């Protein structure tokens, strides 16, 4: 039973991948754009902080470079999602297509999302190796296998939390079909942009604010994983971080389940 279910979502991911590479040229161009973007940012920061001894907000040169590079990577993985258009599917009534089949809509999109991420990860790996061999930038390499393991685990949970965010904000469309995009913009763009550590490392904020923010789910999307990778978290911070993060994962999942059920009751299955 469980195996069959796993197989179901594996097949969803596989089909999604086929769709993604149905236009190979588009896909390649998109990767090229990514590389150019990475190069630009790298060159920019490399020239801004050319002095290797300079320390900025407690970050050394190689750590800043790594942080910036890491943000681009982690962000590309966590703050991007195939399920971006759930609100649209609800408003247009396309959700009906899934509701009438024995498939879980959340896991459906999650499978598609993970498939896409695996594909991109393999490309990033090749691109990164090439970049590194050619440019030899000053990067900080984490050698502690535990930190790397925790880093990957926290990215994984970050992806789940962000997907839950997307689904929860999209649920607004059940009641207000026009509001889906607005809710998404407020929460997932503005708030996340500020408080996930994408714009700046959160530890440059005053301690008091940091304390509050640390109890929100947002820092766990980008900032927390990167701090783990950079080895900047004490054991206490690490444990506390994971406890808070996993608490939010559970709470958001329960909340989504609750609000989704309510939403389906007013769902109008529009469009014919």
């Amino acid at each position, binding site marked *: 039973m469980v195996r069959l279910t796993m197989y179901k979502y594996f097949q969803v991911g596989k089909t999604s991948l086929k769709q993604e590479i149905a236009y190979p040229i588009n896909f390649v161009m998109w990767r090229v754009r990514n590389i150019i973007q990475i190069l630009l940012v790298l060159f920019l920061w490399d020239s801004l902080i050319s002095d290797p001894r300079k320390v900025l907000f407690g970050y050394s040169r190689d750590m800043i470079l790594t942080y910036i590079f890491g943000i681009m990577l982690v962000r590309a993985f966590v703050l991007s999602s195939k399920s971006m258009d759930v609100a649209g599917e609800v408003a247009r009534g396309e959700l009906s297509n899934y509701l009438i089949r*024995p498939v879980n809509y959340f896991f459906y999109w999650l499978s598609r999302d993970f498939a896409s991420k695996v594909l991109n990860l393999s490309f990033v790996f090749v691109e990164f190796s090439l970049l590194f061999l050619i440019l030899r930038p000053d990067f900080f390499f984490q050698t502690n296998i535990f930190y790397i393991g925790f880093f990957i685990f926290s990215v994984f949970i970050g992806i789940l939390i962000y997907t839950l965010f997307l689904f929860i904000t999209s649920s607004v469309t059940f009641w207000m079909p026009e509001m889906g995009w607005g809710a998404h913009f407020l929460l997932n763009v503005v708030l996340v942009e500020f408080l996930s550590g994408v714009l700046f490392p959160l530890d440059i904020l005053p301690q008091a604010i940091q304390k509050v923010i640390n109890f929100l789910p947002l820092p766990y999307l980008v900032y927390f994983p990167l701090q783990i990778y950079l080895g900047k978290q004490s054991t206490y911070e690490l444990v506390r971080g994971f406890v808070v993060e996993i608490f939010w994962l559970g709470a958001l999942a329960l909340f989504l389940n609750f609000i989704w059920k309510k939403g389906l009751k007013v769902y109008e*299955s529009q469009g014919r």
Partner: protein
Amino acid sequence: MRRSGIKENINKAVVVSGLVKNFEVLEKGARNIDRIKSLLKPKKKVVTALKGISFSIGKGELVGFIGANGAGKTTTMKILSGLLYPTAGFVQVLGFNPWDRKREFLKRISLVMGQKNQLWWDLPAIDTLELNRAIYEIPHLTFKKVLDELVEILDVKDLLTTPVRKLSLGQRMRFELIAALIHQPEVLFLDEPTIGLDVVGQQAIRDFIYQYNRKFSATVMLTSHNMSDLVDLTKRVIVIDKGEIVFDGKLTDLITNYAKEKIIKIYFSGDVNIGSLEKICKIRRYAYPEAVISVDRSLAAFTAAELLQNFPVADITIEEEGIESIVRRVFRGEAVNG
């Protein structure tokens, strides 16, 4: 009493009783000032799409569900397949409450809506079908057997590996149908399955529905504005009008019920004053020397006599109203029982 009621339900695929569905609509207003007002103080209007309808469909039956635009056909089907939450009333399909959307329930039904598509646009149809095999947990062997059969009947075997976006509308519709049937549902809700197809395409789909109903003894509920769909396929029809069921019975009975008028065809032998002809009957078509008129059944003989007396008539025939024009009137939403 009770026991026999339960027994009866066992042989029913669909049981609907007192089903009501309300939609809440926000009134936006036509003028901009009204729209701004409605933002501040939203006015809600309740649209009652279904006003407590009741009917049941036996296992293996093929029923036509007809009515004018906006009568409530699609709404009913969406409730029966668990997409919409009913406002009130009792609904049971294969013994399940559709709203629960249990996996065992979803695996045994299918809803096909003419223009809704589940096929993956950039991929060949076989990929969507393979995905459905996994989603519906169909064993490989069964899948292959059913697929072979379906592509054979619908004559699309060679197109399985063509990207869907390169298929014509009709070819795509056939694959939509295959994708909806690959799990061999016992109950099939078809909402205008032949919409947008050419005559050949319509015929292929019709033949197919007929065969599917026979072969798998599947229960089929079909809406269509296409008269041939109904005449060819259904024995029983349910007519819905403005959210109420106004007829439920044999198609042939519908016709006798409905046929309130008779058709009189006249060939004139000389000039006719149309004005005075219009005074005694309803003219449907007039192209000298032929006129087609319709009159109330009870007045048919009288009118014919009148015509013979006052007009230069070469030939006259009295006919029953054709099934096509009756069904057309049903589609226009004319009252069934007057």
